[in-house]
């Protein structure tokens, strides 16, 4: 399957996005902000279709909308987005509605909408791959600088605030990074399935290990496993890659639950 350039591009793009999603997703799950990331992708849908409407590349419309929304979410919050699921849910559905409206004016073929909603990893070209890589490296560097105060602020916000961590600033920078990664992830899984790469592997990792270091390593590996595994399965079965990625991601999560359940039973027996 690597004989085809579009497959090589698809594997490279999925690899880049999986590394980012595993890394950033770990903190999203730790902070209880996975739903916020989901909402960002829906805002991105309105941005992408809006960009198409005015004749701009949809990727940049998507990116602009998610970053704006992420920063707004961070500045509007009190350093955490927990407990705001109603607001986030309403914004989410409103943005999806706006996206639908823009599509209606576009009167383009339905494939464009499907590609945005469910991803089109086989359509990633060389220039898109370049952008994914450049933005990805930027996100990893930003996370390297932010990870320490972010971990502190996520686990012990009261203490972190007392020690001089600016909770709102940390939260805003983090949500901006989440926004960029979400926009990248939409290229692979589409707007509706970003959970599969950004949340599934990270949540699985947190079921399996109790240290952040190993958690992030595991989260990245699982995301790569789901991404590349999904691509390979889609090649062999001729089913959409996004379906397989989401199926694998959910499968990992359930398997980790079973593993932990049996593991705990053993430890009780041993006690």
């Amino acid at each position, binding site marked *: 399957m690597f004989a085809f350039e579009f497959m090589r591009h698809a594997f490279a793009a999925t690899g880049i996005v999986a590394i980012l999603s595993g890394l950033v997703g770990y903190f999203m799950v*730790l902070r*209880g902000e996975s739903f916020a990331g989901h909402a960002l992708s829906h805002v991105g849908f309105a941005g992408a279709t809006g960009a198409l409407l005015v004749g701009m590349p949809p990727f940049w419309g998507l990116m602009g909308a998610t970053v704006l929304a992420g920063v707004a979410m961070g500045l509007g919050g009190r350093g955490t987005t*927990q407990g705001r699921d109603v607001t986030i849910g309403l914004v989410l559905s409103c943005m999806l509605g706006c996206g639908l409206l823009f599509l209606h004016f576009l009167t383009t073929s339905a494939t464009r909408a499907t590609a945005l909603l469910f991803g089109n990893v086989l359509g990633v070209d060389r220039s898109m791959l370049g952008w994914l890589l450049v933005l990805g490296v930027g996100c990893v560097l930003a996370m*390297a*600088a*932010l*990870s*320490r*105060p972010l*971990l*502190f*602020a*996520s*686990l*012990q916000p*009261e*203490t*972190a*605030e*007392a*020690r*001089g*961590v600016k909770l709102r600033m940390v939260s805003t920078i983090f949500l901006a990074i989440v926004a960029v990664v979400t926009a990248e992830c939409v290229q692979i899984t589409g707007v509706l399935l970003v959970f599969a790469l950004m949340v599934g592997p990270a949540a699985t990792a*947190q*079921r399996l290990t*109790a*240290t*952040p*270091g190993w*958690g992030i390593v595991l989260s990245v590996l699982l995301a790569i496993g789901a991404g590349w595994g999904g691509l390979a399965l889609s090649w062999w079965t001729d089913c959409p890659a996004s379906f397989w990625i989401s199926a694998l991601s959910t499968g990992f999560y359930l398997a980790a639950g079973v593993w932990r359940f049996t593991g705990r039973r053993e430890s009780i027996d041993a006690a």
Partner: protein
Amino acid sequence: MSGHDGHGCCGGPPAPASPAMPPVDMAHVTLRIGDRIILSDVGLAVPAGAFVGMLGPNGAGKSSLIRAILGVVPVAAGRISVFGRPVGRGNHDIGYLPQFPARSAPRLDGRSFIAAALHGERWGLPCDWRPGRHRRHDAMEIDRVLDLVGAMHLARRPIDHLSGGERQRLLLAQALLGRPRLLLLDEPLASLDPHRAREVVALVDTIRRQLGIAVLFSTHDLNPLLGVMDRVLYVGRGAARLGTVDEVVTGPVLSALYGMPVEVIRANGRIFVVADGAVQS
């Protein structure tokens, strides 16, 4: 860290900056949260090395006062200083144990939880991911605080599997990072049974004596602190009274602070505060 008046030179525990500088000094302090007045023109000084129990009716503003000493909540008027310096966030002389939050505990082990707090305010990678000398140095500091609270055996267990008392031990260890000289403990006894509460109080007292630091300990129930605390700070209706238990925990003083007739009953070495017919121990 700056600010230590370089007396205590080489060796031995660092000498207090100056014996004249109390851990907490408040002068004409007015503290307001929204339109609620927590303190109005209050002056008091916590003596060096003291174990101060902070009491007061629900909503009297015990947590707000602690947050004001941390510099998180600004005072409306007056001045609070900590070891002679004005309050401000990021004061390494203070160790802080926040009220245990309602949010669910993360699935992380105790050691990672404490490691996240070690210089967590700096940019960069978390301290236990850095290579070499720094990492060993940080690991020693984490071992030191775990050992102080007797929580070495909890370090590798996920926090969500620990009991309330075990979590408080870890939070106390976290508060001791960086060798603070003042501990601010916000309701560490909340949701602990009386036996565990006594254990936590005894542990805090042992650490206080061992390190020669001052402790401000807020609580609902003064009985677990009897015989251990050497001062009580009562906060209520904008006023505050600091003194010995015998000076402060009396009918007239508490009646003024609660704003209603209060009776204090002593029986079998315990103290019961009866306000408006309802017993509060």
